[in-house]
């Protein structure tokens, strides 16, 4: 008699697969152009660096063993033609009535004429020497500038993903505002990254030259799909006495593994207002650094995040005071639902001699479900003696008494919770000078609170 095959159904999760490496090859390096040397060097470093593991301090709470790295591929030229188009709401202005300029980045490059988007910059700004265009066009039209800006604040040695994005970025934005030029209407770029199995690599270069001023909004987004990846570099210089308001919205779809290395340098008397909104991705590991390199430089970082389902958001922030009389002020606030997880790890560093520095950092978390978890790890490293640095970190839950109070006024339980979550985020909203951005965040709160 033939033996029946024994069938066992395992209800436990399959063992987490081993850490994979990417299958990218040197042939994928963009040929020629002003960045060929930079990219070649980045490629060599990328090859040399192993995939980060949880044995490294910065990655201790973010495990990449689920990332199907080996199967990810770069989008083919004009891959967007066979992929979902960028939704029109992403092209709407968020910070003013209209944009001074817009850049839409699509997988594989090129412009989709059906959205009427592509590249646009107010001719009056062009005439004043403002450059706002995608990386490929900038490489052709402004090779010297691009060569000067690549690597201006982030070194490709800083990590595997930084090196990867440096080497193979097909998409990117270049923004240059000449000295003394004030750009009244905000500039807006969208990185649209649809396509399961694709690796979207981006490189954003911004230089707001001395005395110049601009508001720049960058959003990265994609539909909810199976696994894909984004790795990005953001390098920004705010010149002497210059001002930058930078709004960065992370709205990746739920299959995206998102990695970024971002550093904004602020020179003497320069001013930065940096706003983050993170509601998307499967997993995010974001290194964001504010570097105050000149006396009197100030920078504010305001972060909003809301994770649900199985999302994992890991924000690593650094406030480096490298000159005297510099001021930084960071507030990150996040809510968590479902089985989601957040990590915030922040560090204020004050260099020797950076006296009269004022540094502040606070991270507040609201955990809305039993299974969600938030880790909040502040840090100070102060090598000067005449400074003021303070920090705070909290992880809390919705309390019973306020909920009962709201319910006793006829507010149904789900709405009472939403109201309390909105109240929790209010200090962040107060720091955002744009109605459109605030409404986006309110909408995200509403959607995530009402979702199962």
């Amino acid at each position, binding site marked *: 008699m033939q033996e029946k095959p024994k069938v066992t159904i395992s209800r436990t999760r399959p063992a987490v697969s081993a850490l994979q490496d990417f299958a990218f090859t040197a042939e994928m390096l963009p040929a020629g152009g002003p960045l060929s040397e930079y990219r070649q060097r980045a490629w060599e470093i990328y090859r040399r660096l192993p995939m980060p593991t949880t044995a490294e301090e910065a990655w201790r709470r973010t495990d990449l063993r689920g990332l199907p790295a080996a199967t990810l591929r770069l989008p083919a030229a004009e891959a967007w033609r066979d992929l979902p188009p960028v939704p029109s709401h992403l092209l709407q202005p968020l910070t003013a009535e209209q944009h001074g300029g817009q850049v839409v980045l699509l997988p594989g490059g090129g412009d989709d004429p059906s959205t009427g988007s592509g590249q646009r910059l107010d001719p009056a700004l062009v005439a004043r020497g403002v450059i706002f265009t995608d990386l490929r066009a900038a490489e052709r039209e402004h090779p010297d500038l691009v060569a000067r800006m690549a690597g201006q604040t982030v070194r490709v040695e800083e990590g595997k993903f930084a090196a990867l994005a440096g080497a193979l970025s097909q998409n990117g934005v270049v923004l240059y505002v000449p000295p003394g030029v004030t750009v009244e209407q905000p500039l807006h770029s969208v990185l649209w990254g649809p396509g399961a199995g694709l690796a979207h690599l981006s490189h954003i270069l911004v230089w707001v030259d001395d005395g110049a001023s601009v508001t720049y909004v960058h959003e990265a987004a994609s539909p909810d799909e199976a696994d894909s990846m984004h790795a990005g570099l953001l390098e920004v210089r705010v010149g002497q006495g210059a001002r930058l308001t930078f709004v960065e919205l992370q709205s990746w779809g739920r299959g995206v593994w998102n990695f970024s290395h971002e550093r904004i340098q602020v020179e003497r008397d320069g001013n930065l207002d940096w706003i983050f909104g993170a509601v998307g991705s499967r997993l995010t590991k974001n290194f964001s650094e504010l570097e105050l390199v000149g006396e009197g430089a100030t920078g504010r970082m305001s972060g909003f995040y809301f994770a649900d389902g199985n999302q994992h958001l890991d924000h690593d922030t650094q406030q480096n005071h490298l000159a005297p009389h510099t001021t930084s002020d960071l507030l990150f606030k996040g809510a968590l639902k479902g089985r989601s997880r957040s990590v915030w790890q922040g560090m204020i560093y004050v260099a020797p001699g950076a006296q009269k520095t004022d540094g502040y950092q606070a991270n507040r978390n609201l955990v809305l479900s039993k299974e969600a978890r938030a880790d909040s790890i502040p840090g100070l490293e102060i090598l000067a003696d005449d400074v003021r640095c303070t920090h705070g970190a909290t992880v809390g839950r919705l309390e*019973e*008494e*306020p909920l*009962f*109070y*709201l*319910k*006793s*006024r*006829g*507010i*149904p*339980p789900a*709405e*009472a919770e939403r*109201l*309390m979550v*909105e*109240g*929790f*985020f*209010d*200090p962040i909203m107060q720091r955002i000078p744009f109605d459109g951005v605030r409404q986006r965040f309110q909408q995200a709160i509403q959607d995530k609170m009402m979702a199962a």
Partner: protein
Amino acid sequence: MSQLEIKNLHVSIDGREILKGLDLTVKQGEIHAIMGPNGTGKSTLAYTLMGHPAYTVTEGEVWFKGQNLFELEADERSRLGLFLAFQYPVAIPGVTVANFLRTAVNARRRAVNPEDKGIPIPEFRKMLQEQMNLLKMESSFAGRYLNDGFSGGEKKRAEILQMAVLKPEIAILDETDSGLDIDALRVVADGVNALFGPDLGVLVITHYQRLLNYIKPHFVHVMLDGRIVESGGPDLALHLEEHGYDWVREKYEEMNGQPGR
């Protein structure tokens, strides 16, 4: 005519019985006062009627507008027309008085019509301003975070403002006089009196008689050891002011001590 009808109410907290068979009926157009020494279960009664989850009803029932109150959640009780002015109003940081009240008003509208788009903002502002004028409140009050950093008097006025906006049929005021100086007390009492009428029934819970100088009750009840042991007219409050609670206690103990009862 709506009425709140409490029958043989027994309530426990953490397994300890606090209310031991309380009976009381409050109708629209009536003001009742419950007085009694500390620890007799006055606040337990208030919280239980509103549906606080910490209190367990072990026996008895409460009827309001034909509904068994204990089958309803706190928000449903509120929308049915019950209101509790808290002794210790809770701070809700980040939520303004106006935003909170608009949410509460809209919750009522949606309970009637799920398609309701909410009260138009200009209409809401006008209504809120009128109610705040009535309570002599600065208009900037609407933009402050609810009870966050409010003084004792501001908190109690905010409670009465909520009552004015939500227009309950039965309102319970739990120790609304506690922590108030005489001026604040007068403002709060004036507010309650302005709102009182044939459509509102009020149950005032208080430790001291002084609030009753400003809010004149039609009925006064004395609560002791989880029950109402004495009921009467306004004179009863004055009598208590003069003679304290001891005589009630003695009378009650004597009554309980009688064999066969």
